[in-house]
């Protein structure tokens, strides 16, 4: 019964995971007849490469912008929707739409909206008397434009997770807080909602973090990491090295760096979950 699943798990998940770590210690290139173990040479190359550090810095910048923004806005929207009775389903549907829509197709729409001459964004800016930007072609703005698209896409997903968390807070807690003198929306939020949402918030932060580390689609379609590497990110560097230059060993080393960050986030999550963030 478990044999097919177990075999495929070894062949397609566990094996390749070990394989990618092993590969990162070799100089294997696709198509070359042989390879040799080169120890940490790939990592030494990587740490000596300007592109790697740019890529890592841009990825961390992307994560540091998208995670707080998408989590805070997701929470704000969820609270606003929950705070009243009317049009709940409408708002929920609208905010969830970007999660469903194929990101590649919507990236192309964003590209046109950010068009330097005929784009909607610059058109609106001109309308209120501002100079526009060549958003995706300017090294000062390219990464931030991608961040905006990232937040636009992640917000609705986080909203739905927070809505589920809000529904599960027992009403009696609010009544109890009221009796204890917690009047006003802010007091209720600070004393009941925020502590009770602790586990949800940790989960949302971690999953948004992991997804942001994986950012690739928008980068590959819109900027290819440019201009002059200003929007280069880890998975895109890995893609270029591993699948355009076929430097499998070096690409594997980049994958390992990516895995370390994802692992760190997962550890943070389980550490916080075990501490019982419920009533911090």
């Amino acid at each position, binding site marked *: 019964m*478990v044999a097919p699943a177990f075999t495929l798990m070894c062949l397609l998940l566990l094996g390749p995971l070990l394989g990618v770590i092993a590969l990162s210690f070799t100089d294997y290139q696709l198509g070359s007849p042989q390879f040799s173990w080169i120890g940490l040479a790939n990592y030494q190359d990587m740490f000596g490469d300007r592109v790697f550090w740019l890529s890592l810095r841009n990825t961390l910048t992307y994560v540091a912008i998208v995670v707080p923004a998408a989590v805070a806005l997701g929470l704000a929207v969820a609270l606003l929707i929950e705070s009243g009775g009317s049009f709940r389903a409408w708002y929920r549907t609208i905010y969830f739409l970007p999660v*469903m829509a194929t990101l590649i197709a919507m990236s192309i729409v964003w590209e046109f909206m950010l068009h330097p001459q005929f784009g909607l964004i610059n058109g609106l800016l001109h309308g209120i008397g501002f100079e526009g930007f060549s958003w995706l072609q300017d090294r000062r703005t390219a990464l931030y434009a991608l961040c905006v698209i990232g937040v636009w896409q992640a917000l609705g997903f986080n909203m739905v997770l927070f809505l589920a968390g809000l529904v599960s807070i027992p009403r009696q807690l609010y009544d109890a807080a009221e009796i204890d003198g917690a009047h006003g929306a802010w007091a209720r939020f600070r004393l009941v909602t925020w502590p009770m949402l602790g586990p949800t918030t940790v989960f949302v932060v971690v999953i948004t973090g992991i997804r942001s580390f994986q950012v690739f689609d928008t980068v590959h379609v819109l900027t290819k990491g440019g201009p002059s590497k200003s929007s280069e990110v880890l998975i895109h560097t890995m893609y270029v090295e591993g699948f355009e230059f076929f430097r499998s060993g070096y690409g594997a080393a980049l994958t390992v760096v990516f895995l370390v960050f994802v692992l760190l986030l997962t550890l943070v999550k389980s550490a916080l979950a075990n501490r019982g963030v419920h009533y911090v």
Partner: protein
Amino acid sequence: MTPRPRAIVWSVARHSLLLAGAAFILLPFVWMISTASKPQTEIFTKSIHFIPHSFALWDNFATAFGKANLWRFLLNGVVVTVSIFVLQVLIALPAAYALAKLRFAGREVLFALVLFCILIPPQATAIPVFLLFHQFGILDSYAALIVPFTISAFGIFLMRQFFKTVPDDLIEAARMDGISEFGIVWRVMLPTAIPALTAFGIFSVVAHWNDYFWPLIVLNSEHLRTPPLGVASFRNEEAGTNYGPLMAAAIVIIAPLVVAFLLAQRRFIEGITLTGIK
């Protein structure tokens, strides 16, 4: 009874904030439809107008379908997503049943492995799986698009949690009737699991319909392109000149999932946020 003034102020504030956010969220969708409805001359102008002066939506659709093989991309999307889901179910369900209801040596270890596999991001295994497929000579084929996703550790976990709640009496009764263990999976467990399976199906189909990374890596041939690859290559060929048909193509690519979502919102939100219950 008239509502208190504070309640009215709050209600106005709530709707203003939510509407402002909704405008930001909907802007790309509105602009996509607006641009797809405009003739070339209205697209390349500096004046912003959402409603086209002359309506060119059908022309743009015709151009898009004429220049890019959109039907083929949609068909590929259906073939790939459906195959992936069917194989995931065929492989995950027996394993989930065994992990939930059967006693055998190594069960706990196996379940721990499943939990571990859930955490492996798909980008991490891409290079070795690519090399493996290169070795077998199956790159650039439907198989290359489907096989890596036939095993869903998350699917096994989800169905195992669900099967745990099915009463043992039901299984005992089936065994009394002489139904084999595989028969129990398909004839007893599967029918009880339809809601969980639907949610997982939506999760799986949406993820793989929208996937760009893996098809980009393994495909060369035009006729195998999935919807995201198809629209991306259409854009590259048009090189940013023909925005009307390009936006029309984008509408075609997102339409199947968006329409399905609007028809069955609750189920879709459940399915997509499945990862939220881990």
